[in-house]
């Protein structure tokens, strides 16, 4: 069974209506449906949503702190305080823990497989925001064991899912509506990620870029509240300092941007290589006989441990220490390059084997090693370059993040937040953009989407959502063929004109620059109601007027009005009352069809 296709309700309360609608209350037998709650307390949802966001943030922050501590404890316990090549525990720990994880993931926590991001997206788009408690606990335990024992995975994505799980649990217990419950998943995800990264802006942006796919005013406030609350908790325990420290970068010569551009290109190709390896190895391992699934994490652990045992223990675990060392220029360029390549291999193996754990930290690791390697190499041959190796490593992290995870905006802000260094803005933007464009052109389907497709699910592609061309009213707009009538014109004159011109509708400019669209068929009724020949049409028209529509509004804004108006006047925003043109339902439909045709 795949990571996501198993119903999450199998481990939770399976109710016919919804897990939230009529569940028994913790305070007694009283139960209400969504509609009843909406009727008796219409503002309850909004208010609770904001208050609960803070609780979600606090609890996610606390759990993520515990999660990271567990990883550290396990690391010291299983690998020793400072792992060195040649220690047999480096071989044994990841292998034995891998075997245990294989069993746990297969028989106890099947939902804990994978990184956690796609699982959270699945909860949002498929399971109405439902993430079971068992999944959450399983994710905590299995990911901590995997990362602590040296599997090449990171704690951020599991933290994201743990946060989403907390949000889901709280929402269910408070009997929030289905819609609210669904929105809680990204709120919790942002809180979990923010606490793990100590980077609230990046967490918010990531959830918007990768989980929700668009800026949504409905959840933005809650996401911000939750992320800030969780970061407050995380900083109370871990401190407020940025994750990495590098000196400020002064770009003395703008030609040096070329050096960073080279890094962007190299990072783009590395991201494609990493994605393709994952996209190839994972389905192949899954296609192996069922009994091997339990053994695969153990085998992956043995190989990863072997890499550590035979000289590169840096690739084991999340690897933040190594990133820090690389930023301080502690490795030669070929060692850095070797670490980047080995980390790609180790992470591909760990992740593809079904070992629970995230991709963020390995991505940052690979990017940092690649960046430091390129930086060292370039500085060796062009010693006049002023950027430090740390600067290249930092830019490299952003580059791979943009190229591999396909979140360009998050990648830029993440670099700022992880380093607390804004002086690097130009190199980061340039290199990240290049990497993103290269990765996109060579690997059109982002890795998370590839993984969900491999799991047999079709979740919305956030990259497509972001880049979707929105149709606007101006795309369907055409000039008015007929005549514009004044509201003071007599109805009989308008009727005669309409008849003469064989028009279907009469467009009448009313008081206050409002418009009325009068169908020819209705004109006869109006004439019958008139009391004198020269009676102005305005006195005979109903009170309602056509809506104010402007050319730049989304085209779908028109759809709600066609049941009342056969055509819709579109006016200029600057000059009140100036008619830009009209749109009909047929125009709108044709516009959508043409657009779909072009897209396909």
């Amino acid at each position: 069974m795949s990571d996501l296709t198993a119903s999450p309700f199998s481990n939770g309360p399976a109710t016919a209506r919804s897990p939230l609608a009529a569940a028994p209350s913790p305070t007694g037998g009283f139960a209400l449906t969504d509609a009843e709650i909406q009727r008796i307390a219409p503002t309850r949802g909004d208010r609770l949503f904001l208050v609960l966001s803070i609780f979600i943030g606090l609890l996610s922050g606390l759990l993520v702190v515990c999660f990271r501590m567990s990883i550290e404890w396990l690391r010291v316990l299983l690998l020793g305080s400072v792992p060195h090549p040649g220690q047999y525990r480096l071989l044994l720990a990841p292998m034995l823990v891998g075997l245990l994880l294989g069993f746990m993931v297969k028989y106890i926590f099947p939902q804990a497989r994978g990184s956690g991001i796609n699982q959270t997206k699945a909860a949002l788009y498929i399971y109405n925001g439902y993430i079971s408690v068992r999944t959450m606990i399983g994710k905590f335990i299995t990911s901590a064991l995997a990362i602590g024992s040296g599997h090449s995975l990171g704690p951020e994505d599991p933290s994201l899912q743990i946060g989403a799980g907390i949000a889901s649990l709280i929402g269910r217990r408070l009997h929030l509506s289905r819609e609210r419950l669904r929105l809680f998943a990204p709120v919790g995800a942002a809180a979990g990620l923010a606490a793990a990264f100590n980077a609230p802006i990046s967490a918010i942006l990531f959830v918007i870029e990768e989980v929700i796919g668009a800026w949504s005013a409905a959840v933005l406030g809650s996401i911000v509240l939750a992320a800030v609350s969780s970061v407050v908790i995380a900083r109370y325990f871990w401190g407020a300092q940025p994750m990495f420290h590098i000196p400020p970068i002064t770009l003395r010569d703008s030609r040096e941007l070329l050096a960073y551009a080279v890094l962007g290109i190299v990072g783009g190709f590395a991201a494609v290589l990493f994605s393709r390896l994952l996209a190839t190895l994972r389905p192949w391992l899954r296609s192996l006989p069922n009994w091997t699934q339990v053994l695969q994490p153990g085998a992956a652990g043995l190989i990863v441990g072997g890499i550590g045992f035979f000289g590169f223990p840096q690739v084991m675990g999340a690897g933040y220490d190594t990133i820090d060392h690389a930023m301080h220029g502690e490795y030669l360029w070929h060692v850095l390059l070797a670490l980047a390549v080995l980390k790609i291999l180790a992470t591909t193996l760990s992740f593809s084997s079904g070992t629970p754990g995230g991709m963020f930290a390995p991505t940052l690791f690979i990017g940092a090693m690649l960046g430091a390697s390129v930086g060292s190499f370039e500085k060796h041959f062009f010693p006049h370059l002023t950027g430090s190796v740390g600067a290249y490593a930092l830019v490299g992290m952003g580059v791979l993040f943009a190229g591999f995870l396909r979140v360009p905006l998050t990648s830029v802000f993440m670099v700022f937040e992880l380093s607390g260094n804004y002086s690097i803005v130009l190199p980061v933007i340039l290199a990240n953009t290049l990497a993103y464009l290269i990765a996109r052109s060579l690997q059109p389907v982002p890795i998370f989407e590839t993984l969900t497709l491999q799991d047999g699910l079709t979740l919305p592609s956030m990259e497509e959502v972001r880049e979707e061309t929105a149709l606007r009213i101006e795309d369907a707009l055409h000039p008015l063929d007929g005549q514009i009538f004044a509201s003071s014109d007599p109805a009989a004159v308008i009727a005669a004109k309409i008849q003469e011109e064989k028009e279907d509708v009469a467009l009448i400019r009313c008081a206050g620059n409002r418009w009325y669209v009068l169908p020819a068929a209705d004109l006869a009724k109006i004439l019958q109601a008139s009391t004198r020949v020269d009676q102005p049409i305005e006195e005979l028209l109903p009170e309602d007027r056509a809506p104010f529509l402007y050319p730049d509004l989304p085209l779908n804004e028109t759809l709600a009005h066609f049941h009342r108006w056969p055509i819709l006047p579109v006016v200029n925003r600057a000059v009140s009352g100036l008619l830009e043109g009209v749109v009909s339902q047929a125009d709108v439909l044709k516009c959508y069809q043409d657009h779909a045709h072009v897209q396909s």
Partner: protein
Amino acid sequence: MATTRTADSKLHLTPAERIQRRRLIVQDTLALFGLTLIAICTAVLTYFFFHSFAEHRSVLEKRWFERGQIAMAAGRPAEAVEDFRSALSFSSTSADYQMALAEALAASGRTEEAAAYFSALHDAEPGDGFLNLQLARLAVRRGNPQQAVEYYQAALNGLWRGQGTERRLQIRLELAQYLISLGRSVEAQGDLLAAEGNSLDNPSALFAIADLLRRADDPTDAFTAFRRVERHGSARPSQVLQSLLAESQIAASMGQYKRATQALNRYMAKSRQHPSVSSPRQNQAVEQQLDAYQRMLQLIPFYALPPKQRVERVLLGADIAHKRYAGCAAKLHPKNGPSRQLSSDDAAALSALAAQWAQMGPRKPAAFAGNAPLQQQLIAWTNQTEIWTAKVCGPPTGDDALLLQLAQVPDKTE
């Protein structure tokens, strides 16, 4: 309750719905209260868990740090690097550990890495004197003079926790030394004079400053500074003796042999007061030097001398130089064995000198009395002869050696 009632009436709720609404409010309040309790309990548990975790890390990091310190003290910086790095992995933000690691890296010759660590620390505390000093030293190693001088200046102006005056003096001396090594003596002189002004009560510092001033081509100020050391009440006898030697050397280099002689005389007097400080061998060397300076004073045709005596000295010098020339020319003559091959310049100089000395004829005092240009010409020939013979026939001895010294600084002497 009034608010609830108003809300109820606005929503047009039935009595049953009102009851449900109130129950819902109570239920939500209880749920939030429960959540608060859960959050508090989780926070307390996390706190204790974290506390225990932090303690364990603290033990480990201290253990590694101590190992690193021991390795550093034992002169094994490469080993210390690994230990400090392990300590840092448990406390990545500890400035002390970073500093220790940076120092170990610098000590083990890993300049770039050390610079990266110091730069990161400097970023956090740009005004720290120690960090700026370390970065200055690393910049020196990396051959970046501009950056090195900037960091030295920042270290001078930086914050020092205790012993700021002494530290700044040391840095100024280090900076001056570095500037001298770069050939930027004038800049070094400025720093040294500033340092001298702040060190008048410190004979050791004055001595170091004087020595550096001498190396920075500022003999006048160097002489003054050595003089200050000599006259300083708390200066050690050895410092005084060394200062007197330096004074004599500087004075001699400036052609002031009277001062040089006076300094050596004071040296001899002082060494007799403190026989344990100077060795007999050194005293003997000083006595020889003193004799040489005194003889020098007898040879120099000072303008201030009575005209007759000045002419006698000019002629004495010329006689000595002519003998030296004659000996050297004879040595070079092919009849006296295999002669060395003269370069065309030397051969031309030899011919010119021969012509000059032949042209001069017998040197009678009456011919030179009152004829200052002729005296000056003879002095010039004397100097040329000593320089040329030293070049062609090897280093002179005795009076010729003294005349050669005078010939090398004729303007100063005159």
